[in-house]
């Protein structure tokens, strides 16, 4: 070994000009580093044409550098004899270097991976030796060259080994290792050369003819210098391009980073399972800094999952763990992208907390009534179905309560919806307090509530209903107002009154309706007959609507005469309905129904128009009296409607008499009296019907100047025999005459009643004694007949 080193040292120091050897080393180093710089440019070039040009330039530079290193070193060689270089071998050595370097590069690039790099490295290593020994074949000396085989083998091996090492270093992931690639190759070239030179010795032989065509060292110097300049130029260009590439890469990386930071989703870039990048959203989500996450395994932020597990293209549910160890529900999706020349996996992580809480809120809102916080109609329906199934399984019993507030509408109408809402909230709390453990209270909407309760029998259901009604009825103090409402309840028992949620609810509804009909503020248990009554009412309702459409309603007239003289003065219009199959239907039945159905305005207008048209055909001075319902009286259009009908029918206003009942005045807020005043100002007469049956009759009489009072027929029927009725009749007639109002006695049926009424001072009579109700034509005929008879 020592001997070998001595040989090498002797070769270098004794036989070479060291300054030129150093120059060769420098040229070689520049060449090899520029070769890799150009290689880098090739890798980053986006277009294949550019890659080809740069690839060719790289091959050229590498081959030229190997070649130039060799010949500069040869110029440094001082064997002590004149030397020359054969042209053919000199050129061939360059061509061979270029060809093998090109081949080696193609193998290394074309077959990515360690095997390709090794193969490419071997070929490139051989390129060095091939160049060197071809060049040496053209080394002309006056003598013969002798070769030491050990040195030759060492020379060739060192070139191959360092070339392979260089190729592996060039593709290393670590930057410092990558930087070594050029130096390793330089070492390979230099070692191949000088070990090769140590292998050779010149045996001077005067017999050997010195080749005349040999290239002189001076010529070679020029060639080599040019080659060195070419390498330098290519190296400079490659470095310049590299710098530009690097700058662009950095700008792009920065831009990408900005984009990633703008993204709402968390983004993480993985090289294998190692995290090499993340954006700000993910930092925030995790509550960790970038530095704390970089370099860690993917599974550390998404426990139980590897980056390779994350599906590409379709989102998957997962959970990430933040700095505090809290699991955050997320959806993740991966995308593989090439960063530089290696594949990376980018995982997008979307925080689901907000979406999940929104969904939970939506679910809550879908099931709860926002005003009272009680379950709403929907969850009530679900719960009822569930409990019925459960109750049926255990053959238990269950009661369903439908609760509706009484007098709630006036609260809303007069005090406003805010007050109504406050009342409903309090009611919900009170009802809740009245329930037992396990009972369910729901708000179905408006002022409708429902309760599902397990009961042993009707008695228990009734007791609970009592509690509910009592607690609802207690006064409410809200913002200094005292509100008094009540509750009506319909109860249906399972399974007796319905086996399905729908039928049970229907039964409870029917029972509720019955409770309201029975006067509100009470409960009713469902009975089968309720359904029948309800159906009958429905049928009547349908018939009434049809009757209006088909004109089955008629107006009949109850003639009126002047007391004493018996002269016809006019008639009261009476609404009659004769149903094709039911026969006559009493107004006491269908008028309240029409009021409830909102049909009374339409019917009332039709009656008024018919009566006015009929009366217009009667001889003067016959009058017609038409009843106004309280609902009509509250309508703001009433005055206009009456005036329009008078104009249409050309009936003189003084021949029309409008009758109102006391009840119409009870809820008066002043507008009713104003309406009556407007009608009276036009000359229409106003009378008070059914007088004596209302509440505080006298006060109304003093507040409005009625033209006429009509004594209710209930008093007439009992008079004169019933002392009480007789005294009431007397009081009314006295009052009428004192206030200057005419007094009509209704329902006069006997001669005794007629005499009594006339004696008591009634001014007008009507009733079966005078005539039963007749048609419009008959009224006119009766008047003419009576006039003729008296004439």
């Amino acid at each position, binding site marked *: 070994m020592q001997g070998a080193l001595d040989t090498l040292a002797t070769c270098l120091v004794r036989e070479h000009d060291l300054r030129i050897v150093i120059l060769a080393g420098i040229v070689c180093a520049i060449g090899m580093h520029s070769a890799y710089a150009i290689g880098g440019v090739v890798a980053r070039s986006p277009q294949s044409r550019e890659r080809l040009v740069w690839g060719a330039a790289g091959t050229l530079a590498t081959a030229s550098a190997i070649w130039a290193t060799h010949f500069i070193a040869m110029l440094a060689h001082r064997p002590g004899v004149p030397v020359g270089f054969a042209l053919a071998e000199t050129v061939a050595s360059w061509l061979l270097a270029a060809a093998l370097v090109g081949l080696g590069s193609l193998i290394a690039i074309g077959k990515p991976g360690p095997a390709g790099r090794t193969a490419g490295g071997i070929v490139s290593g051989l390129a060095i030796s091939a160049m060197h020994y071809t060049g040496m074949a053209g080394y002309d000396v006056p003598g013969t060259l002798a070769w030491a085989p050990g040195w030759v083998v060492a020379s060739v091996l060192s070139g191959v080994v360092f070339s392979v090492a260089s190729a592996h270093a060039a593709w290393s992931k670590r930057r410092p290792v990558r930087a070594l690639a050029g130096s390793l190759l330089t070492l390979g070239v230099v070692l191949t050369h000088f070990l090769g030179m140590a292998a050779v010795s010149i045996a001077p032989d005067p017999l050997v003819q010195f080749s005349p065509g040999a290239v002189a060292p001076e010529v070679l110097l020029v060639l080599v210098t040019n080659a060195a300049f070419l390498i330098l130029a290519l190296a400079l260009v490659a470095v310049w391009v590299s710098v530009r590439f690097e700058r662009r890469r950095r700008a792009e990386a920065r831009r990408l980073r900005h984009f990633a930071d703008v993204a709402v989703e968390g983004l993480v870039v993985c090289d294998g399972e190692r995290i090499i990048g993340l954006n700000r959203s993910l930092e925030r989500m995790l509550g960790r800094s970038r530095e704390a996450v970089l370099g860690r395994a993917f599974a550390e932020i998404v426990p139980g999952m590897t980056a390779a597990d994350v599906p590409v293209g379709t989102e998957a549910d997962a959970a990430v763990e933040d700095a505090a160890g809290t699991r955050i529900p997320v959806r993740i999706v991966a995308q593989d992208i090439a960063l530089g020349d290696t594949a990376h996996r980018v995982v997008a992580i979307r925080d689901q907390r907000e979406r999940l809480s929104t969904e939970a809120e939506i679910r809550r809102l879908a099931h709860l009534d926002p005003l009272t916080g009680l379950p709403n109609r929907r969850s009530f329906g679900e719960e009822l179905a569930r409990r019925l199934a459960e109750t049926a399984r255990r053959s238990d019993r269950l009661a369903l309560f439908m609760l509706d507030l009484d007098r709630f509408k006036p609260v809303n109408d007069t005090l406003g919806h805010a007050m109504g809402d406050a009342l409903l909230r*309090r009611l919900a*709390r*009170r009802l809740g*307090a*009245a329930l037992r453990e396990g009972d369910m209270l729901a708000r179905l909407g408006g002022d409708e509530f429902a309760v599902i309760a397990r009961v042993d029998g009707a008695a228990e259901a009734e007791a609970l209903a009592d*509690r509910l009604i*009592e*607690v609802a009825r*207690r*006064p*409410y*103090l*809200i*913002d*200094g107002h*005292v509100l008094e409402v009540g509750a009506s309840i319909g109860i249906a028992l399972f399974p007796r009154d319905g086996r399905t949620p729908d039928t049970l609810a229907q039964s409870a509804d029917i029972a509720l309706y019955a409770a309201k009909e029975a006067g509100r503020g009470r409960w009713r248990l469902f009975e089968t007959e309720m359904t029948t009554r309800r159906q009958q009412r429905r049928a009547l309702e349908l018939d009434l609507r049809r009757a209006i459409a088909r004109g089955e309603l008629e107006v009949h007239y109850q003639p009126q005469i002047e007391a004493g003289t018996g002269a016809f003065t006019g008639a009261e219009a009476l609404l009659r309905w004769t149903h094709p199959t039911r026969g006559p239907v009493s107004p006491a039945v269908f008028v309240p129904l029409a009021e409830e159905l909102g049909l009374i305005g339409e019917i009332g207008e039709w009656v008024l128009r018919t009566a006015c048209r009929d009366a217009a055909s009667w001889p003067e001075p016959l009058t017609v009296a038409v009843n106004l319902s309280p609902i009509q009286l509250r309508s703001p259009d009433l005055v206009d409607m009456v005036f329009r009908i008078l104009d249409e029918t050309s009936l003189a206003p003084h021949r029309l008499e409008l009758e109102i009942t006391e009840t119409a005045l009870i809820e008066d807020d002043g507008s009713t009296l104003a309406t009556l005043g407007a009608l009276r100002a036009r000359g229409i007469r106003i009378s008070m019907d059914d007088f004596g049956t209302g509440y505080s009759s006298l006060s109304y009489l003093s507040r409005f100047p009625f033209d006429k009072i009509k004594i209710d027929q209930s008093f007439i029927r009992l008079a004169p025999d019933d002392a009480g009725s007789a005294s009431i009749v007397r009081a009314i007639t006295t009052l009428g005459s004192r206030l200057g109002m005419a007094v009509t006695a209704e329902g006069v049926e006997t001669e005794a009643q007629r005499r009594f009424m006339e004696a008591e001072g009634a001014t007008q009579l009507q009733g079966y004694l005078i005539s039963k109700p007749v048609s419009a034509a008959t009224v006119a005929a009766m008047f003419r007949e009576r006039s003729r008879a008296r004439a």
Partner: protein
Amino acid sequence: MLYRLVYRSRHALAAETASRELDELVTRARAANARAGITGALLLADGHFLQAIEGPLEPLEALFERICTDFRHRDVQLLEFGPVEERLFAGWAMEAAEVGAELVARLPLAAGGAASGALTLELLRSQVEASRAAG
């Protein structure tokens, strides 16, 4: 602004535990009322309550709502409610007195009782004061 209300109710307490429960109720009411700035007096007679409470509107309404949600009371009826100039029971967080049957007829305890609002309050006051003097 001060408000006063007077209500009556029947109590639905079991006979044997009624007096103890009522004592507790009054004790608790006193503490709560003192905090809420409510004063008043309570008369117990023959299974009935007659209570006057006065104070600022908000706690007064809240207290009455609690009474109306409480099933130890039955047939709660509001006899009087409105703004007042001054407290009639100043200094009484809640004074209670029990009166005998002979007085019941004069108080509007059962429906249809005859006493007017002013008379009721005066009775309440005098009875409770008498009870305090005796106690």
